[in-house]
């Protein structure tokens, strides 16, 4: 009973505070803070996409930056070439879904094992990074968009939504829409995880052989998880592009792939909220450390990461959940002791 209670309490509080933040943060906080928060929101969506495929599908990708970069570049190129930036946004997500479908088909139907999956995803992201880096020549043009190599693509049109009279989103509107997007993604994934599909995907993660022996085609489940995660990761990339109005090849970089893994690991694999907390915590931390220039912040950050992983091997959120559950169990046991 307590367990179920805790299971629903967490998400309810999270969604509630998300909605409150969406409404009130722009009224309380300054323009700059909101602009900063939007960045966290976008990275949180990216982290959640990784948390989903890893924690609920058992797919450990070392190149999740591939969809982040692809989503960003797809949005950039499409938005520059098309009248509707909303359509560009949707198509960018679709591009990443299709990309994940093709890549995932080779990985899962080719029966690559987990190690090869890690290597292949890593290599694909690196290849994309290399490719885009080499597009600085004037020949690399898609319609009106110059890919620009390592210089990236500047002046990307900002997302326009029909609900705002077709004008580009101002930073406050963007914050609200993207945070709304994060909440929607979270709720949708939460429901998906509890659905029949989600449960079987978790079973596949737990024991592929047993899932097969129960009559499930595990390839199909893994592929779909990969496509969903890739699409959401691509959405985060497209959001990043419209937020910065600029993309460059570093979106595909190893650093981005590693960061998203770390956010999820620190927050807790097997949760969705944990990685969101991971993003906020670690990004804030690295900004703070960046301000104090007299110490090497990379080393300090690395040490903090290591101690986090050592102290909370299951991640922050699962450790906290355990504490809460124990607390409830103990008070329940005490209650029984009194009545009995």
């Amino acid at each position, binding site marked *: 009973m307590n*367990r179920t209670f805790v299971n629903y309490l967490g998400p309810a509080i999270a969604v509630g505070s998300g909605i409150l933040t969406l409404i009130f943060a722009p009224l309380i906080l300054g323009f700059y803070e909101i602009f900063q928060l939007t960045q966290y929101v976008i990275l949180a969506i990216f982290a959640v996409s990784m948390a989903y495929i890893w924690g609920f599908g058992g797919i450990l990708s070392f190149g999740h930056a591939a969809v982040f970069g692809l989503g960003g570049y797809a949005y950039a190129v499409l938005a520059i070439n098309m009248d509707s930036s909303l359509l560009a946004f949707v198509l960018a997500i679709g591009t990443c879904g299709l990309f994940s479908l093709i890549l995932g088909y080779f990985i899962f139907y080719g029966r690559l094992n987990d190690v090869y999956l890690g290597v292949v995803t890593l290599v694909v992201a690196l290849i994309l990074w290399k490719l885009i880096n080499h597009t600085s020549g004037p020949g690399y043009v898609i319609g009106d968009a110059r890919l620009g190599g390592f210089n990236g693509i500047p002046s990307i049109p900002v997302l326009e939504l029909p609900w705002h009279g077709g004008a580009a989103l101002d930073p406050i509107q963007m914050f609200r829409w993207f945070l709304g997007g994060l909440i929607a993604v979270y709720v949708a994934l939460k429901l998906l995880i509890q659905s*029949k599909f989600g*449960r*079987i995907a*978790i*079973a596949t993660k*737990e*024991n592929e*052989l*047993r*899932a*097969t*022996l*129960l*009559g*499930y*085609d*595990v390839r199909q489940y893994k592929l779909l998880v990969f496509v969903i995660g890739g699409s959401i990761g691509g959405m985060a990339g497209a959001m990043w592009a419209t937020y910065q109005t600029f993309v460059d090849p570093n979106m595909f970089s190893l650093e981005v792939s590693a960061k998203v893994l770390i956010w999820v690991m620190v927050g807790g694999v097997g949760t969705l909220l944990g990685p969101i907390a991971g993003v906020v915590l670690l990004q804030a931390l690295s900004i703070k450390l960046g301000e104090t220039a007299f110490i090497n912040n990379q080393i300090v950050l690395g040490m903090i990461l290591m101690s986090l992983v050592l102290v909370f091997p299951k991640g922050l959120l699962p450790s906290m959940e355990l504490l809460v559950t124990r607390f409830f169990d103990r008070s329940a046991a005490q209650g029984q002791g009194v009545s009995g």
Partner: protein
Amino acid sequence: MTTTNNPLLVTKGLTKRFGGLVAVNDVNLSVSEGQLHCLIGPNGAGKSTFFKCLTGQFKSSAGIVTLEGKEVQGLQTYEIVQRGVGIKTQTPSLFDGLSVQENISLSALRNQASRQVVETLEEMLELFQITHLTRREVGQLAHGQRQLVELAAVLAAKPKLVLLDEPAAGMTGDDRIRLIQTLRDLAGRTTFIVVEHDMQFIGDIATGVTVFNRGRVFAEGSFDEIVARSDVQEIYLGKEVDVAA
């Protein structure tokens, strides 16, 4: 409720080679509907490999397997399972991080509507008397309990043919008796092929026994016939006879 003599499973010339080793060699076996058939044989005789060929986990090198008259060799494992085959593997294979309830439900979920899944879950928990374990994480259970959960999960999909690879291994008194009772109860409705080393267990449940030796069918007959044969004792029961002598 009339005669149940239709062969459910038939293998003809089933063979599995690993390089030079012929682990399953030209096996012809026929198991009728509702039968509780035992497969015995010394270590390395090819019993588990035979099961893996039946379920498509291994691609057989030669021969055919028919289920209800339809050939199934060459199908994917999950497809064979979907045709009504359930298997408990020799090394326990469960969703260790999930609860007993979820392990069983996940099996029933495949071919049953959600209301029926709940019924099946209750039924299985009662059948194996593991209701008190419903919410426990499977990875934390004792070996014998895990065996029972795996059986419950396999049976929850209501398979026509159930393959059990050493189901009594690691089971203590009570769990063993429960397993024997359950198999007896279900026999007639469900078809079982059981691999076991424990002759007493086989004597308690079996209607027919096939003896494997070095990948081949060495002998076939009723339990009493089999234990009476001196050549079977030599290859398989040798040790026990020695001890008794």
